[in-house]
């Protein structure tokens, strides 16, 4: 023991010796900043002299000098730091939202049957990729290249500054804004993929995705986030309960209507045949990945991280987002227990996600109790509307319509409860306008696809499973 103590003491002495000898050479490097120091001293001296000329005391003159120095530092470096932090927020938020693509994939593959798992995985890889391509090709400029108060932007690809040439004039770098917004488009597209699963034809679905990500989402997005007519009206959707989730939900609803229910799902006299998913662990993992990605989805929608107020707001958004999800999950759990006497884990998953969708329209202004309330109602909505869809014979495999469309509408409508700058009337106008446009446009696209290439696989292929019929790769070949 003593020998260890001895070694330890010797080590401490050695460390001190190193520091003492190293400090002079560390002091050497401070010389690099001496030019800066003399500039600041000069600014301070000017301010001090001016104060003395106006009859100030020596103490007042010194404090005037200090004020001048600190304000010029804040101006120059504050602006630079704000641009860097704003860009950083977009980059981090962007890859967190990108990670939601994994969440959607796990959730959907877990909730479809084994024979359709490879197809669901492939659809998610493809739609994420298509979203990125289309958003670069035309989407970003359709959404952000328009006139204030307008309806549509311009049709051209996005350009990023050359390597080393970026200046972040807008307060953030161009590419980081493109990247962040692109991830949101992808989220919208994957909402549709879950609803029409197990019977949609791969290429028809991808064709729809091309239109959704290149045109439909950017147009309605332009109306609000692109400075268009809805934003001028005062409509408010912080991170996209309507612009992302309801848009995806309306497109999904149109798809579900035009594609029809899976064979054997609905029988005579309202009989419903459940088709349980292949992996509860995957579905749950998907939910948690989405939950984590949502911190980027909502948090980075603050769109700024250059001030203390901004980071405080982002922190508040993180907290509210988490609590709304928790409230949605618990509410769904309690309701399902009361109604069905057993707690269906898939409904609780949907409940948490509905809580997240609900808070997305306004994650900043609510206090915690309000955030819990908003999330809880979202959770309740899915518990009651999942069976309702079955009654209407609308076969939504993963509950995308209750979670994204209905909770999205709720989240958007309740914004004025905590945000004084909005009104229920304008929220309703926004919801209706975007809803009508998206539903009608989606229906047209689905209809065109249906009568041309067909959107549904044959009955035999549906029974065989899409993995064998269209992919050629079984997800679990040895089971």
């Amino acid at each position, binding site marked *: 023991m003593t020998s260890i103590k001895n070694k330890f003491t010797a080590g401490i002495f050695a460390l001190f010796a190193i520091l003492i000898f190293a400090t002079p050479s560390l002091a050497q490097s401070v010389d690099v900043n001496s030019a800066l120091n003399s500039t600041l001293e000069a600014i301070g001296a000017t301010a001090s002299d001016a104060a003395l000329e106006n009859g100030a005391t020596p103490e007042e003159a010194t404090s005037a000098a200090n004020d001048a120095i600190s304000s010029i530092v804040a101006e120059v470096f504050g602006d630079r730091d704000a641009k860097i932090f704003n860009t950083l927020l977009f980059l981090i938020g962007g890859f967190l939202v990108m990670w939601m693509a994994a969440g959607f994939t796990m959730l959907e593959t877990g909730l479809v049957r084994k024979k359709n798992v490879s197809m669901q995985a492939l659809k998610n890889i493809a739609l994420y990729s298509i979203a990125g391509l289309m958003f670069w090709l035309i989407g970003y400029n359709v959404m952000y290249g328009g006139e204030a108060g307008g309806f549509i932007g311009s049709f051209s690809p996005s350009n990023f500054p050359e390597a080393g040439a970026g200046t972040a004039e807008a307060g953030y770098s161009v590419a980081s804004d493109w990247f962040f917004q692109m991830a949101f488009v992808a989220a919208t597209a994957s909402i549709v993929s879950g609803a029409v699963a197990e019977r949609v034809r791969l290429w028809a679905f991808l064709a729809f995705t091309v239109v959704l990500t290149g045109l439909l989402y950017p147009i309605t997005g332009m109306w609000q986030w692109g400075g268009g007519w809805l934003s001028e009206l005062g409509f408010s959707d912080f991170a996209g309960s309507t612009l992302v989730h309801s848009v995806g939900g309306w497109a999904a609803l149109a798809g579900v209507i035009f594609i029809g229910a899976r064979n054997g799902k609905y029988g005579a006299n309202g009989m*419903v*045949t*459940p088709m*349980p998913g292949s992996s509860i662990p995957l579905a749950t993992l998907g939910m948690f990945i989405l939950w984590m990605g949502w911190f980027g989805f909502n948090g980075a929608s603050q769109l700024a991280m250059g001030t203390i107020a901004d980071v405080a707001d982002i922190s508040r958004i993180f907290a509210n987002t988490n609590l709304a999800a928790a409230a949605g999950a618990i509410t769904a759990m309690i309701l399902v227990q009361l109604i069905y006497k057993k707690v*269906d884990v*898939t409904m609780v998953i949907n409940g948490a996600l509905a809580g997240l969708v609900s808070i997305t329209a306004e994650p900043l202004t609510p206090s915690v109790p309000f955030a819990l309330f908003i999330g809880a109602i979202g959770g309740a909505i899915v518990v009651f509307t*999942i*069976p309702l869809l*079955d009654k209407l014979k609308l076969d939504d495999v993963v509950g995308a319509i209750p979670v994204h469309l209905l909770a999205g509408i709720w989240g958007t409508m309740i914004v004025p409860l905590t945000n004084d700058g909005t009104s229920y009337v304008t929220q309703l106008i926004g919801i209706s306008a975007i809803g009508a446009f998206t539903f009608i446009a989606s229906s047209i696209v689905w209809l065109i696809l249906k009568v041309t290439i067909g959107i549904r696989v044959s009955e035999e292929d549906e029974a065989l499973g899409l993995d064998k019929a269209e992919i050629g790769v079984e997800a679990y070949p040895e089971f």
Partner: protein
Amino acid sequence: MKLVMAIIKPSRLENVREALSASDVHGMTVSEVKGYGRQKGHTEIYRGAEYAVNFIPKLKLEIAVKADQADNIVSIIRNSAESGKIGDGKIFVFDLEQVTRIRTGETGDTAL
């Protein structure tokens, strides 16, 4: 030779295997099956829709034995597989016409 086929509850497998290994049984085949008899299924509920699960998971054991051993094996299986509750299963005995060991080509009792 006889083929003894037993349908048992999955949780009893280890018990049955252990009891049989003490006797003159050198191998068996086990498959996962579903079935029902007097033990009815139950209702489950998935996303708000109730459905009946009529078939219950069971295990099927197939054991080839010498003709004079069959009765002994049946009672060993019966004792080790039973739990006293409905759904314990059944044991069937078939005539086994021929047995061949693939590796050596032996047939008959020596192939068992």
